Structure formats: structure tokens, C-alpha cells
């Protein structure tokens, strides 16, 4: 598991380790309209979280984890996915 880079967005899947943070930051900065998909993300390392918060990419999909949602400023209960944390 890790980050899958597509043409339009980076899909974060499973646990994202500290090593992935730099690549993600570089990739996001290189994009004109950076976007990430967090639907399948598990635990993100602090460094990755920091990248997400610093570069504020658009969210293709929202994470399900309650605390990660809170950290990204999303409402506590996902309205569309309906999956509780």
C-alpha cells in the first residue's frame, strides 16, 4: 500500500509511511491543480499529514477516519460515504 499517482490525482491507499511524504510533496507542487484521493487511506504519517495541510490539495474523496477528517477540517460524520469512523 502507498501512493498511486494517476494523471489527475494521487490516491493514498492504506498506511502511508514517512518516506512517501517527500515524493507526495514534490508531486503536488508540480501539479497545476493538485488533488488527492483519501477514500482508502489508513494511517498517514505525521509528515504526510503535514504535506496535506501545507499544500492543501483538492480532495477527490474524503477519508473515513474521524481524527483525520477533523485534522483536515472536514465535518465529523461523512455525509455521502456514511461510514462512521
Amino acid at each position, binding site marked *: 500500500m502507498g501512493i498511486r499517482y494517476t494523471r489527475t490525482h494521487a490516491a493514498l491507499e492504506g498506511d502511508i509511511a514517512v518516506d512517501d511524504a517527500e515524493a507526495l510533496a514534490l508531486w503536488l*507542487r508540480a501539479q497545476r491543480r493538485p488533488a488527492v484521493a483519501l477514500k482508502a487511506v489508513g494511517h498517514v504519517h*505525521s509528515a504526510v499529514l503535514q504535506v496535506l495541510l501545507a499544500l492543501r490539495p483538492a480532495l477527490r474523496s474524503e477519508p473515513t477516519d474521524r*481524527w483525520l477528517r477533523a485534522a483536515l477540517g472536514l465535518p465529523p460524520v461523512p455525509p455521502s460515504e456514511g461510514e462512521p469512523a
Partner: protein
Amino acid sequence: MKTQDLLDQFVQEARECLERIGQRLLAVERDPANRELLNDLFREVHTLKGNCGLFDFGALEHLVHAAEDLLDRVRDGQIAYRPALADTLLDAMDHTGTLVDRIARDGRLDGEDPAAATLAQALRLHLTAPDPAPRGEAAAPPPRAMPDWLSALPDGERPAGAVAVTYAPEPGCYFKGEDPWRLARCAPGLRHLAVHAPTDWPPAPEAFDCYDHRLSFRLVCDAPLAAVQDHFRYVPEQVDCVVLASERADPAARSVPANDADPALVALRHHARALWTAQGELLARPGVAAASVESARRVLERLARILGLDAADSLAGLAPGAVPLATWAREHHPDGAAAADRTTDESVAPPAPRLGAASAASPSAEEGHSGDRGPRVLKVSQDKIDRLMDLIGEMVVAKNALPYLAARAETQFGQRELAREIKTQYSVINRIAEDMQHAVLQVRMLPVGTVFQRFGRLVRDISRKLGKEVELVLEGEDTEADKNVIESLADPLIHILRNSLDHGIEPPDARRAAGKPATGTLRVSARQEGDRVVLEIADDGAGIDTRRVRAKAVERGLIPADRADALTDAEAVQLVFLPGFSTAESVSDLSGRGVGMDVVRTAVERVNGTVALSSMAGAGTTIRLSLPLSMAVTHVMMIETAGRRFGVPMDLIVETVRVPAEDIHHFKQSQTVVLRGRIVPLRSLNALMGLDDPPRPNPEGEHAVLVVRLGGETIGLVVDDFDGTSDIILKPLEGVLAGLTGFAGTALMGDGSVLMILNPRELI
């Protein structure tokens, strides 16, 4: 109870207390952050002080009181535990031990004791001059301003008694392998977690360094402060914990009466309710074990009492089994029957009466008090056990007379029927006697850990004195052996440890130069091997310098120079066991007082043990002690020579052989025989014992040879005949016979005769 009895009990308990305190002090020193240990330590000292208070031992009480005060402050986190403080405490406890000894001797403690006063003064000094850098968050004064971010939270996310944590990881934390986000989200009882970014956030994308941690976290944890602090134990300087007070507008806290507003109480009651619910869940499981039901019942009973529910009485009359209890638990749930089905309930706070004066006591502490009952232990003095042992020994002897009686009934009186009945009865009594003997031996069994306990202190003191860094590793403390064996071990072991510390393990600099870790390891392990206990003391020090050992042995005149050179290294190492051998250049305080390894060997051999030593230059030394599990019963081989019967301890015997007379080689005075390609020297037992009869061969012209092992060498003893083996209770020689050499003791045989047990070591 008479005053004397009371005093005896006090002395005994005080000694036990002191021993435990000594252990705890060392344990706390290794792990100062462990609050459990500190609490334990404090409790022990507190008990000791309480005991002192029963008598009028002013000096003693004063000293222990000072220690208690100091520990109290340490426990509260107001003073950090540090080596200097530990030294003072250890000294104080040592002196307390001396005072207790004095009380044991004189039955009183008169007047002032200047040493105790000085030590108490020293303890108080630590009290008034607290550590300049107190330990992290524990040192902070409890009443603290709430962090301002808290007020922005909704009420539901900050229950009273919860802990508000501000966690600011350091910028370079990723490089230490830390993941602050994970640490924060895994905090116990997490209710709220917010990421707080610095003011210049978000940074310009070009300037952003993703491996420079800039975020901080704000948490609210609905868990005890200790649990939260434990969770953040690796980063104590980066977290700031504040316990939320109840007046911070928590609805749960408001609904209880005003005098119950204590946040700790609210939190406790919350936990009590959660416990109650958990019991219900446990009981609802299919096939719950009877023991679980019983413990659930006990927990519920205690909870009911703590929560002040009047339902506690009805619990007693309940039918046994899980179902009635589960029903009862649901009906009497403190939150009402409906709430019992929910797993946890934060919003409802039942109007429960106050816990009383014990407001600070947690439920676990409450249970700890009444749970102390545990397994019942009788304290029996050793004399009584020894008396029991003697009686059983006599019983074994008396029982062994029955087969003789049966034989007489048959041969002398021609009563075969009766003889058979006697034999049947004998086998029954025999079985019971063996069980009894076994049971008493079990009582006398002690774990070797009782001896190991002293080592921690010893190693600490000596290594500090020598400026060495030594880690003591103890293994197999649970291995059991007879009390006498264990006790006879203490001195040799201490001697070996001292040797290892003094001569074996090098100073840190030398170790580093040799490419070894600066801290030496001293490993003491015990295990059971068959019917013997094997103890190994291994250090990873310099090993024994065989060149020096050879030179020393020659210099001391213990061995001729040419023989010393001919020895292999492994053999040369054994020279340290020679009496009068000591390699220490200077007589130090610790070892090298001319008392060498020979004392160790003598002490171990006295209890039928053996010592083996192996050493690798530069890699360390290992000493292996092998001891019998029990000394009470000895297996002996009975032999006959010159018309007399003797016993030889079984553990010395290698084999018994019959050697044709013509196979014995005579060379001057000595005789040898070749057994399986090895030359075994032969000695005639008759000659050794000063009996004039020549050895008697059997009709086939063969001599009976008992091959025994004496410290690594095998020797053949020529006797007249072998006579089977027997279990005997060995009685040492007493009175006028005490000075007799060559005999280990006597034993009473079943036919009433006395068997002399030989000690071949002394004979040869």
C-alpha cells in the same frame, strides 16, 4: 500476646520489610518513572513506620519517618529520584536494619542514636533542597490554568476529569522515528483531537520542508492522568497535561450534588459504571466459567458498596450461576436498567452519594486493600520444620524394620501368612512415609531467588566503588532447592560475584578499548538438571590470565614450575582452586584477602556439590555450581570390606567393576588398572582405613572395584564386595566422634544397625 512475642513479630516483619524496601529501592533506581514501584516502596516504608510506632523506639521511628516523608514527596513528583537520594535512603535503611538487630538482641532501644539522627538529617536535607530540575510534568503544581483553546470546544468533548493535553513535538522528531500524529491519535480515551498549525501556516510551497515538523496537537483524553502521561512517556517534555476541573461546565458534573463536584470522583464513578456494564457483558456470554461468575459477583458487590447502592444486601441471597447474577446486575445498574444495555454512558450521572473520606482512592486501590488476603500463608519457624523432618527420618528408619520383621516371622516362627501381611502393611506405610517425606521436603524448598535478592545491592555497591559499570542479569530465580542447600550457597556465590566484579569485569575504558560495551554483564542463572540444581555465574570480563595464574602458583610454591608449564590453559585455570591461591596484586577491600576460590570449593563440596570453572581470555569467565536438590536424603552404595559394612555416597560413584587380579598392574607401591583405555589408579580401602586384612577376591579371582570421582579424577577403591544401595538419612558425627576424618556421618539402618558413611575425599 505477650510483649516479647509482639516484639519478635515486629523484628521479623521489620526485617522482611527492610529486605523488600532494599529491593524496591534498587528497582526504582533502574526505573524511576515507574509510579507503581514508587508506590510500593512508599507503602513498605509506611508499614515499617507504622510498626515502629507500636513501640517506643524513638530513634528508629524518627529515621523511618524521615524516609517516609522523603518518599512521599518523591511519589508526588515534587522531588526527583536520583542516585544521591537513593544512596541516602539505602544508608538509612541499612542503619534501620542495624537498629532492628539491636532491638532483637536487647529487646529495647534506649536513648538517642547519633547515627540515626545524622541520617534522618540527611534525608530531611533532600526534602528541603529539592532537585533544581524536577522531573517533567509531574513536578508542575497541580492547580493550573486551563489552556485557552479548551473554551472553544463543545461541552461534550471535555468531560470533567478528562485530561487536556497540549502536545508540541520537536521539529526534528521524524528523524528519531517518531510519528506524533500516530501518538496523538492513539492516546487513551481520546475525545477530541485538533491539529494546531503555527501562525505562519500554510508556508509558501517553495519554502515548505515536509520533514520539518511544525504542527502541534491538542487533545482531550477521557482517561486517568497517569494513563495519559504513560502514553506520552517518551516525550514528557513535549506534552503539557492539565486535568479538567468539573466547573468547566460539564453537564455530567453539574447534575451531581455540589459536594460531589470533585472531578476525580466524577471520573471514578464513571469508571465504576463502566466496570458494572462490563460485568454484565461478561455474564451475558455463553458458557461463562464459574470462576468468572464468582469474580464478577465480587466485583459487583464491591462496586455496589462503592457506589452506595443499597442493593448490595440482595446480592448475597442470589441463586448461584451466571443468569441470576446477570439479571441482578441489569436490574440494579447504577444508571438504571435501561442503561445497562448500552456499552458506555457518559451523559447520565446517577445521584450517588459521596465516596466518603477516601475521595482520592481509586477503585483499584480499594480492591487492592481487601484483595490482599490472597493465598493463606503460615509462618513457621525453621526449628519446627526440622523437627518434623527428623521425625519423618525416624519413621523411615522404623518402617525399614518391617521387612526384617517379616523375614523373621517367616524364617524363625514359620508364619508365612503373617509375613505376607506384614509386607503388605509395610508397602502401605512405605508409600505414606515417602509421601510425607516428599511433602516436608517441599516445605523446605526455597526458590534460589531468596539468595539472588542480595546480589542486586551487592553488585551495585561494589561496581560503584570500583568505578565499573555492571549490569546484573538474574535468571531462573524460581528454581527451587532445599533450604540448607540454598543457604550454604549464599557465601560462595557472593564470593564468586565479588571475584567477577573485582578481577573479571574491566573498567569501562578498558572495555571500550577491547571493543566491548562499556557496561559489563554479570549473569547469574539457576536451573534444575535432574536431581541437581545448576547455578552458573558468567561474566563477560577479561577472563583468567593463565600466564599470571601459572606464575603465581609457582611463586606460592603450590606447584613445581615444570608442571605448571606442562598444564594446558584449561588446566591452569583450575589452579585458582588451590588453597592459598590469590592473584590479586594488592589486598583490596573486596577480594584477595587470601581467601580464594578454594573456600568456595570447600563450601560447595560440603553440601555434595561440585564447582567447575571455564575461562576464555578476553571473553569472560563462567563458574558452574552443581548442587543436590536436597540434602536430607542421601543415596548410598553399601560395600563390604574386611567383614565390615560401609556406605559410600552415590553421587561420587562412577561405576562398579570386577577386575581380575591378574589385570591389576603393580608399579612400586601403586596399583593401576586399565578401564576402557584409561589408566585408573587403585587404592585398597582396607589400607586406607588402616585395616590389616588383605583385599579378598571373589571365588572367580576378581576384585570388586568401586570407581569414584574425586574432583575431576577417577580412582578405584578395592573393596571385598558390593551390597546394594539404600536411601539413608545422614547424621553428622557428633560428640567425641566429631573430629573423626574419613567419615561423612552415620545412618541408622532398618535392622537397627549403624552404617558408617565414608567420605572418600578425606580418606584419599
